[in-house]
C-alpha cells in the first residue's frame, strides 16, 4: 500500500473535513445574514419534524425514479453487453455528459413547456395544450433521463461478466426468455443492480436543480428546501441539519437494501 497516505489525505481533504463542517454547523446557532454563531444548540434539529412531508415526498419521487431508471437501464445494459459495437454504444450512453446538466434540464422545459415542442405539435391537430411541467411527473421524467447512464454503466459491467453459456443453459433446460432474464440473469447481476441503485437513488434524493426547474410547488424536494434555507433564509445550521438528515435517509435506504440482499 504505497499510496495509502495519498488516499487518506484525499479522503480527509475532500470528504471528511467538509462533512465535519456541515455536522458542526448543524449544532450551532444561525447568524442573521448567514454564517454561524459559535454556541452549541439543537434548535436546528427541532425544526426537522415539520419537514416530514417534504422528506417523504423526496423519498418517493427518488424511489419511483430509481425503479423506473433501473427498469429502463436493464434491457439497454443487456443489449450493449451482447452487442458487437460495445464501445460505440457506451460512448453514446455518456455523450449527454458532454452538455452541461442545467442546459439539458432547460431543454426539457423547451420540450414539455406550455408552448413547448410537444404542445405545439398537439396544437397543430387542434388538441388542447397539456400541462406537462411543474408536477412530480416532470421531475421523475427528468431525473430518470439524467441518471439513466449511471444505472446503465454498472449494470453493463456486471452483465458483461455473466457467462453467456449460463443463459443458453437456462434456455436449453426449458426456460423461456422471461424466465432466463428473471431467474438467471438478474440474480447474477445483483452487484450491478446494487451499485446502479446507489448511483441513482442518492443523487436523485438530493436533487435540487431538477425539481427547481421542472417541478412545481407540489414537487419540491428536500434539496430545494436546503438551498432555500442556505440562500434565502440564510439559516446555515438548519440547512446543515437537513443535509445530515438527507445523508441519514440515504444511508438507511441503502442499508435496508443491502440487508435484504444478504438475507436472500
Amino acid at each position: 500500500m504505497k499510496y495509502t497516505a495519498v488516499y487518506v489525505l484525499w479522503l480527509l481533504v475532500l470528504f471528511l473535513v467538509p462533512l465535519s463542517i456541515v455536522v458542526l454547523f448543524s449544532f450551532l446557532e444561525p447568524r442573521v445574514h448567514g454564517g454561524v454563531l459559535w454556541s452549541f444548540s439543537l434548535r436546528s434539529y427541532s425544526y426537522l419534524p415539520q419537514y416530514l412531508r417534504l422528506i417523504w415526498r423526496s423519498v418517493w419521487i427518488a424511489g419511483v425514479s430509481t425503479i423506473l431508471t433501473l427498469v429502463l437501464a436493464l434491457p439497454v445494459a443487456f443489449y450493449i453487453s451482447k452487442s458487437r459495437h460495445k464501445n460505440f454504444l457506451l460512448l453514446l450512453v455518456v455523450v449527454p455528459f458532454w452538455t452541461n446538466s442545467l442546459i439539458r434540464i432547460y431543454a426539457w422545459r423547451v420540450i414539455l413547456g406550455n408552448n413547448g415542442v410537444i404542445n405545439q405539435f398537439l396544437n397543430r391537430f387542434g388538441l388542447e395544450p397539456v400541462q406537462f411541467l411543474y408536477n412530480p411527473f416532470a421531475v421523475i421524467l427528468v431525473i430518470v433521463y439524467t441518471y439513466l447512464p449511471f444505472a446503465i454503466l454498472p449494470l453493463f459491467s456486471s452483465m458483461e461478466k455473466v457467462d453467456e453459456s449460463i443463459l443458453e443453459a437456462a434456455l436449453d433446460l426449458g426456460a423461456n426468455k422471461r424466465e432466463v432474464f428473471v431467474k438467471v440473469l438478474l440474480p447474477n447481476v445483483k452487484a450491478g443492480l446494487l451499485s446502479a441503485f446507489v448511483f441513482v437513488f442518492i443523487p436523485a434524493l438530493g436533487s435540487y436543480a431538477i425539481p427547481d426547474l421542472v417541478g412545481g410547488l407540489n414537487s419540491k424536494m428536500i434539496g430545494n428546501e436546503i438551498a432555500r434555507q442556505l440562500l434565502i433564509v440564510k439559516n446555515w445550521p438548519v440547512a446543515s441539519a437537513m443535509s445530515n438528515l438527507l445523508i441519514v435517509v440515504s444511508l438507511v435506504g441503502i442499508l435496508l437494501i443491502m440487508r435484504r440482499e444478504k438475507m436472500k
Partner: protein
Amino acid sequence: MVGGEISILNVNKFFGDFQVLKNVSLEIRKGEFFSILGPSGCGKTTLLRVIAGFEDVQEGDVLLDGESILHLPANKRPVNIIFQSYALFPHLTVFENIAFPLRLKKFTEGEIKERVGNLLNLIRMEEHAFKYPSQLSGGQKQRVAIARALANEPRVLLLDEPLSALDAKLRQELLIELDNLHDKVGITFVYVTHDQTEAISVSDRVALMNDGKIIQIGTPYEIYESPVNVFAATFIGETNLMKVDVLEVEEEYYVVEAPGVGVFRCYKDKEAKAGDRLILTLRPEKIRISKQKPVIFENVFHGIIEEEIYMGYQTKYFVRLDEGYIMKVYKQHVRYLLDEPILHWKDEVYVSWDPNDSFIVEVLTS
C-alpha cells in the same frame, strides 16, 4: 429413460459468407454413444448447437425420432446439452441447479426432492447438495452439469467437449464414468471432442469431421484401422504415410516401391493396377524393431535409430532407413528386464512388418 434417434439430413450452414457445415448428413441411432471428432474450427460444435437449437441452418433438416425439430426453439426440444464450461448457475446450490428445470415445469416439492435425490445419487454427490458451484472441483461441476441436463429426462444428451477443462488423469476417470452413466441411463449421447483418444475409447461410433464436412463415420476400430483418406489417417493416432508405386499385382498383395524405403509387399485393400500410385498408412505400433535381422518376416529394412523417446510403457523410435525414409516405430515394453537388449540412439536396427498390417488409404490412378 428412452434414447432418441437423430437424423441430420444434408445440412448446410453459413456464418456470413463462410460455410461452416457442408452438406452434413448423419444417422445417430437410439441409445448410441456417438462422437463427433474433428480439429478445432471444423464445425463440430456448430453441428451440436444446431441439434440443441442454438443455431439455425440455411438448408437441410434435423429429425428426432423421425420428426423435424428445426422449428422448435431450444427450450422446447427434448434434448439437453452440457457445455464446455459446464454453465452451472453460480447463484444456485448444487441441489437448486439440478432442480432448475423441474421448478420451471412446476413439479411439486416432493417430486423435486425425489428426482434431484435420485440424480445426486447417480452422480454420487449427495453430500455436496448444498454447496455452490464455486465450491466444487472441476470434476464435480462436470457431474452436476450432467445431472442437471438429465433432470428433464431428455431423449438425447449433447456433450460439448465436457472434459477439455480437466487434467489428463481426471479426464480418463470421468470418461469411464460417463461411459458407465450412458449404460445406466440408456439415452443417446452425442459427444463432441477434438481428442481422438476420448472419441475412440468410449464411442459406439465416431463421425470424423474436417472443414465442415463429414469425412468418415464408423466404429472406433474402423476409424483407426481403415481411414478413408490422408486426413483421417493422420488425425487419428500416429502413422507412417508413404506414397508408393505399384510394381506388380499378385493374388492378395501388391509389390510396391516406396521412395526412401525400397520394395515391399502390401495387402490389396483397394483395387489398383501396376503403375498406379498408392498412399499407404502403416501404424508405428505394428512395426517390429530388432538388432538381429528377423528371419520369419518379409518387408525387412535396415536403418539407424535417429531419435528415441522413452514413454515408460513404450519407446518411440524414429529410424532412418538406408534409403532415407524416417520411419516411426513404437515398441511396447511388456516385460521387465527380460525384453531383448534395449535399443539406443544411433544403434543399427532392422524394422519389419507384416504385409497385412499396412492399409491403402487412397489410390491415385495414373
